[in-house]
């Protein structure tokens, strides 16, 4: 594998891992601050949850990683990398929280993943057209 592809792969996996960790932190913060109610008490409980700060750190980390990846990788793979965490989040939710999706929902998830891959190709196509246009 060339150095460039190794860089993409590491960046891709890193971004997915950070995004997944951030979402897990969100869910853990929500679970710990339960029961949810539309009142200031709930908001205060949330802000006292350390998991919320994990989620914020994850968002910041994901932002920096995405910007770095975008500087070097084509926009399509970068787009896919920033959205395909749905797959790792599904796996982690099943494993950590025992969540189960209904068969119809799994079909929906497959369509969403396919849609993200198509959009990633579409972004590459548009970026290439714009570059050609600019020249």
């Amino acid at each position, binding site marked *: 594998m060339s150095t460039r592809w190794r860089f993409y792969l590491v960046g891709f996996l890193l971004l997915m891992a950070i995004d997944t960790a951030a979402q897990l932190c969100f869910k853990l913060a929500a679970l710990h601050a339960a029961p949810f109610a539309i009142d200031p008490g709930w908001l205060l409980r949330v802000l006292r949850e350390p998991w*919320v700060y994990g989620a914020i750190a994850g968002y910041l980390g994901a932002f920096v990683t995405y910007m770095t990846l975008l500087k070097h990788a084509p926009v399509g793979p970068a787009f896919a990398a920033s959205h395909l965490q749905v797959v790792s*989040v599904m796996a982690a939710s099943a494993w950590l929280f025992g*969540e189960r999706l209904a068969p*119809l929902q799994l079909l*929906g998830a497959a369509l969403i993943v396919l849609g993200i891959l198509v959009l990633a190709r579409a972004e590459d196509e*548009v970026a290439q057209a714009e570059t050609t246009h600019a020249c």
Partner: protein
Amino acid sequence: MPPISFALWLLVLVFDTGGQLAFKAASGVPGEGLGHWRAMAVRPWLWLGIAAFACEFVTWLAFLSVVPLAEGVLLSCLNMTAVMLGGRWLFGERLTARRLLGVALITLGVVLVGIG
């Protein structure tokens, strides 16, 4: 889906799409380097984007309090459809055949996750 989950899902959608479109509008302000940031700071777009993301943060936490994580993350993929339509409507971004196919697949997938 219970009404409270549905309402929170719509709010997440509105704040996320609004925030992304506001940031896009902010980035279109002319200027280079520090001057660009100064120009953005005196216009509402950047601040509107930051406010929208702060609201989204709280709403997302509330949404995940009432739906399982995997389902929440899958349902939030509709944001991509909304941002793409908003980009077309406000900034005249091109909706190529491939982009349309992508958002159609995602939208159909979200519907199946929602009713499943």
